[in-house]
């Protein structure tokens, strides 16, 4: 017996949206700027960024919406994925930096003569891709193992995830940590031989991001509809009952927590070449909290909701920070309060409620 997660109209919506999103870079490349069908490069870059955010929100939904584990530190996994990929991008600059050295500019500035050990092999693209998955994955596994084994739950768990991302931010702010201090990595020149600023490279990165987002959505859908998905929801609703019927919640939580961190890391790795910069501010506690707001606004425990939430909140943010730059944080806080009070199930929950009312009437 299978429960439906996406209704027929939802599937139609996913397909139409994916097609429209795929069309954007094509319109950008094939029409001149004066043509009415032209989509600006700014727009393509913006939507590309939103898709990375959407993937992070989706990853968060797996742990928060389905398993009831509220993480206020998912930004650290996003940023570590970004840094892992950024190491490769820094090395791909070659001797074209300001100091024309084999080392990145910030290392020259620190008077380092060779790469530290953890930078070894990062000039290999595929090795950096491995790090993108492995670094957030291993961190999440180790952190999760100790936290879940000690049966740390609820708000206590949320607080230590927040502390974790804060600690990592402080660590990465240090110049001597070897990741460029507060400037982080930027001024990337190329990626696997292609000029990173070329419109075709940008379009390719955009389309890869779209494909990864859709792939992640299908993977998450498969997981939450499996029996394991029902076990995760059981962890959320009554963990002790689950133990007394013979499941060890530790491994189920650890599985979904690690998977979520890996997805978030991949999102971060897709984000960095498109945005052109990664620095420790991505690990600031506020960033992780914003991710939670995306998921809450869209509707947690629905997979599609957090994606919708990431797009709508960030779309609003882009407009708002242009129109009233100082007021965004107030607006974000207000939005979170209103959503919590009046639409606890988010946009999707509100839509479902309206549909039921219509049917009942």
């Amino acid at each position, binding site marked *: 017996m299978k429960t439906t997660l996406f209704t027929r109209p939802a599937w139609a919506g996913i397909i139409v949206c994916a097609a429209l999103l795929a069309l954007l870079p094509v319109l950008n490349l094939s029409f001149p700027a004066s043509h009415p069908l032209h989509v600006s490069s700014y727009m393509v870059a913006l939507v590309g960024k939103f898709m990375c955010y959407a993937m992070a929100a989706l990853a968060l939904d797996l742990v928060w919406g389905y398993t009831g584990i509220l993480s206020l530190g998912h930004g650290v996994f996003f940023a570590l994925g970004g840094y892992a990929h950024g190491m490769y991008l820094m090395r791909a600059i070659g001797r074209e930096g300001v100091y024309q050295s084999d080392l990145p500019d910030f290392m020259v500035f620190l008077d380092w003569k060779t790469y530290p050990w953890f930078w070894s092999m990062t000039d290999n693209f595929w090795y950096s891709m491995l790090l993108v998955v492995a670094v957030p994955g291993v961190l999440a596994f180790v952190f999760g193992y100790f936290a879940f084994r000690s049966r740390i739950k609820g708000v206590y768990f949320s607080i230590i995830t927040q502390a974790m991302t804060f600690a990592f931010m402080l660590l990465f702010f240090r110049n001597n940590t070897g990741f460029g201090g507060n400037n982080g990595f930027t001024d990337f020149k190329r990626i696997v031989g292609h000029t990173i600023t070329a419109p075709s490279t940008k379009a390719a990165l955009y389309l890869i991001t779209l494909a990864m987002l859709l792939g992640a959505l299908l993977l998450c859908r498969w997981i939450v509809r499996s029996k394991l998905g029902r076990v995760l929801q059981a962890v959320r*609703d009554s963990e*002790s009952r689950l133990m007394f019927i013979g499941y060890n919640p530790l491994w189920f939580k650890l599985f979904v927590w690690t998977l979520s961190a890996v997805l978030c890391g991949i999102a971060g790795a897709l984000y960095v070449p498109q945005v052109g910069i990664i620095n420790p501010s991505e690990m600031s506690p506020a960033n992780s909290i914003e991710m939670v707001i995306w998921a809450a606004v869209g509707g947690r425990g629905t997979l599609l909701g957090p994606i919708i939430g990431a797009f709508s909140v960030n779309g609003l943010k882009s407009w708002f920070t242009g129109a009233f730059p100082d007021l965004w944080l107030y607006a974000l806080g207000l939005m979170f309060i209103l959503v919590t009070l009046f639409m606890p199930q988010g946009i999707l929950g509100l839509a479902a409620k309206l549909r039921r009312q219509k049917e009942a009437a």
Partner: protein
Amino acid sequence: MSEVLKPGQRYASEPGDAATAYGRHKPEGVDTSHGAILYLEDITVSFDGFRALNKLNLDISVGELRCIIGPNGAGKTTMMDVITGKTRPTTGGAWFGQTIDLTRMTEYDIAHAGIGRKFQRPTVFEQHTVFENLELAMKMNKRVKPTLFFRLSSEQKGKIDEILKLIRLNGQEHRPAGLLSHGQKQWLEIGMLLMQEPQLLLLDEPVAGMSDAETARTAELLNELRGLHSIVVVEHDMAFVEEIAQQGVVTVLHEGSVLAQGTMQQVQSDDRVIEVYLGR
């Protein structure tokens, strides 16, 4: 009775095997060669000096339906906690069969070994349907990977249907469990225990909050299960205990140890019992 399940060891048989068909009498994996399925030996549990259990000795025979009564604070729930691994005894031993030491096992290992527990307050997964609740509880390998790739076989579905009929929830299997009445939730929880194919069922106040009709139906259900599983029932409702105890042994707990033991008639006429409990 030859094979002995060690703590942590997994099932020798998979669901659907002929040997694990619902309703077998002889427990497998548990060494019951001396006729008892559960031994509690001199169990003491102290919380900050307060002895919730005080040198409690109890043994349950294979296939027995044992009723345990006692006033509030007698240690009934603490005893269940010790048996299911939730609370560790300060001293004493809890044995499942001759060989399985329950005091060294986790909650989920104890569940796998064959002890099912119903809580005082009905605890089912309210967001899941009745069917999903039973499916989650079904005896099988409950590790991450087999759970992820699990597909329900028709045999397993048949077993769920069988339990649905037994607990009188057939026709309601697609309702969320949260929408069931209080009594139905209690039955669903009993159904979940049966899906685990336990050798020993622990029922903590199975008729608390039930209507008379529901209570009568529950008594009927327990009478159907009599002999198929060893059952321990903790209950306050005397009429219900009389109904299900029949000529079996009733144990009276008081201040953490056994005060009296015997048939319902013997216990009811025991002066000490009347003094602490029945006479009030």
